[in-house]
């Protein structure tokens, strides 16, 4: 191989490797952004999204419930009093207030197969809860203020239970709307197509329970209150894809609930801001002060090099170790409990080496001649430092602070043992709180909501991006 081919080969290898790296970065970032902005969930419901029955009442609900429809089963459990909040339905942290127009009491009872409680019977002219209201009103009446019409879906796909039995270790879990249509018009003739048993599809219009019970492979579309799950009859769940925005204005402005499973991140953002301010407030004077001492006062010698290597060692200590230290010293020894101040102190310690090193570097890069000139004019050392050295080193110091802030912002391990986990806005230095990076961790571990975690992750990335671009701008301005 001659030198020219070696060169070409090396160049192409470098190009390929860098292309792979860039592609990986783009994919990772793109996926994070995609998952952060939108959610797309396979949801299984009991009913088809159609209304078959002609009832003489309509359903209304307040806007804040965020309901786009209600299934018969949901309404059933609400009427029974099993479903009390909107959390599991739409992740809104609000109690459900269920009302029924007295005029349609009998119809509602017949429809829902449940006696309506007297407390739920409310005339439309009385005052209503402004939030979380669901109202069954006689058709044609105008709903109270703030209530909008809501579709009520009550159609189930009832099947003979031969369809849902285990077959070759497989079982039809759910079907999509399109598949139901195909069953109805005969495009799908065998349950095998849907992953079920080898059984002919028999579609019966308005089948009775008895018909379904006795015909193998039979399927029918029935009203939920007509269909009763008896021996030999089953119903198929309908799967649908739920899409929506993950990050909304509401997500940014409401407080987190249940460890981040519900609600937004407003309190988390505020706590993060408080923590960053505290950390900067604690770490800046100490860090910059040490840097001034090291570069302007300390004499070269074993003591200085000991301090230097100490700082380097601290910079390399894993953050979880700082977390342990913080727990033992701030939380337990100083009795600060799991609190904002414990976490901030721990983080301050953690970012101190970064601040000291960057500040020292930029102070050292100040022209010593100008310092001498200042001394030569009769300025004291501290006057020279404050009026010549610090202004000249300002940009470097601030850049270091911003980078350290970025590190503090993304820190989790140092905080798990120290800052607590309350999702409320911290009311004092010693109140438990949680910050964004740690919130992601806790959302997964405790809240078990991957969508929410991704949304928080995106916000965190955006914050870090902003911080880094500010730092970059300042660095560029320095040259």
């Amino acid at each position: 191989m001659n030198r020219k081919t070696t060169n070409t080969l090396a160049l192409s290898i470098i190009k390929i490797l860098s292309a792979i790296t860039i592609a990986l970065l783009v994919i990772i970032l793109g996926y994070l952004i995609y998952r952060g902005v939108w959610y797309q969930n396979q949801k299984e419901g009991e009913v088809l999204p159609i209304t078959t029955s002609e009832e003489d009442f309509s359903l209304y609900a307040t806007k804040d419930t965020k309901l786009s429809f209600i299934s018969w089963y949901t309404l059933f459990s609400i009427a029974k009093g099993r479903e009390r909040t909107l959390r599991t339905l739409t992740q809104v942290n609000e109690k459900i207030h269920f009302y029924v127009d007295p005029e349609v009491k009998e119809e509602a009872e017949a429809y829902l197969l449940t006696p309506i409680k007297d407390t739920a019977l409310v005339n439309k002219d009385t005052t209503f809860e402004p939030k979380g209201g669901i109202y069954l009103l006689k058709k044609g009446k105008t709903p109270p203020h703030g209530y909008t019409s809501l579709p009520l879906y009550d159609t189930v796909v009832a099947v003979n239970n031969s369809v849902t039995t285990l077959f070759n270790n497989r079982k039809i879990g759910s079907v999509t709307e399109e598949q139901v249509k195909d069953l109805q018009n005969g495009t799908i003739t065998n349950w095998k197509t849907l992953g079920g048993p080898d059984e002919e599809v028999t579609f019966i219009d308005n089948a009775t329970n008895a018909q379904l019970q006795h015909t193998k492979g039979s399927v029918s579309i029935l009203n939920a209150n007509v269909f009763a799950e008896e021996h030999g009859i089953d119903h198929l769940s309908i799967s649908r894809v739920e899409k929506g925005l993950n990050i909304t204005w509401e997500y940014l402005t409401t407080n987190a609930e249940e460890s981040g499973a519900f609600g937004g991140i407003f309190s988390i953002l505020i706590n993060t801001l408080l923590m960053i301010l505290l950390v900067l407030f604690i770490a800046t004077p100490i860090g910059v002060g040490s840097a001034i001492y090291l570069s302007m006062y300390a004499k070269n010698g074993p003591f200085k090099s000991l301090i230097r290597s100490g700082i380097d060692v601290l910079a390399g200590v894993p953050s979880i170790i700082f977390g342990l230290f913080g727990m033992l010293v701030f939380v337990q020894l100083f009795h600060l409990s799991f609190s904002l101040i414990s976490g901030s102190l721990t983080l301050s310690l953690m970012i101190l080496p970064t601040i000291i090193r960057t500040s020292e570097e930029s102070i050292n890069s100040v022209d010593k001649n100008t310092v001498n000139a200042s001394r030569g004019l009769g300025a004291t050392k501290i006057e020279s430092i404050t009026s010549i050295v610090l202004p000249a080193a300002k940009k470097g110091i601030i850049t270091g602070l911003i980078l350290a802030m970025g590190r503090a912002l993304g820190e989790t391990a140092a905080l798990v043992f120290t800052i607590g986990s309350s999702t409320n806005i911290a009311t004092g230095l010693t109140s438990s709180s949680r910050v964004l990076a740690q919130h992601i961790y806790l959302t997964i571990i405790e809240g078990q909501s991957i969508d929410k975690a991704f949304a928080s992750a995106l916000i965190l990335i955006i914050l870090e991006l902003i911080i880094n671009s500010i730092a970059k701008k300042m660095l560029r301005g320095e040259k």
Partner: protein
Amino acid sequence: MGTNLFHVTNLNLWYGKQQALKDVNMEIEKNKITAFIGPSGCGKSTFLRVLNRMNDLIDDVTITGEVLLNQTDIYKDVEIMNLRRDVGMVFQSPNPFPMSIYDNVAYGPRLFKKYRKAEMHEIVERSLRQASLWDEIKDRLHTNGLALSGGQQQRLCLARTLATNPQVILMDEPTSALDPISTSRIEELMIELKKEYSIVIVTHNMQQASRISDTTSFFMIDHNRCGFLVESGETKDIFFKPRDSRTEDYISGKFG
């Protein structure tokens, strides 16, 4: 005329254990330009720094002997800040502060007294005029001092020193980083300034010393790398009829 400004007796200076100056005795006169010449490392810059105690900024410096400024011992009886105000210094390379021209000049006076705006403006204008910089930069007093050319920067440093109204100006090779035209401007300035100030200059440039100075001191280095004063006298005497043969050798270019 002829009044002694500095009176140095038996000055010895050590950097750590290394002696850098040995038994220097010298008189420096008022309203004259005194030049220090000598080979590299002979301690002439160090001696210059003795005169406004700039050596104190370096760790591990030991000084013995007596330095009197107007009959006062500057190492015992003078506040160091006031000494440096009265004995200003211009450095080898131009080193304006990273701030505006105006603030550069105002820096020194502000350290000692709070001036009203008009007073301060007067001081700045006077100093810049003395440094013959005023006409060039009077329209851009608030631009950064670092934006000036090298020669202008050095004159700005001179103006900065003049602003505190010193008695003496120490110059440590002030033209070594400048081009010939800027150099000659600084030299003209020095001759102009000696009417009001006393000037002590360290220079490597023989011609410069002979052109502008009234008195010249010749320093040399011994085999222990320790500097000492060979002789001191009227410039024309040192250059044309030196008493010491080593001075003659140096000036005629036999070594150094």
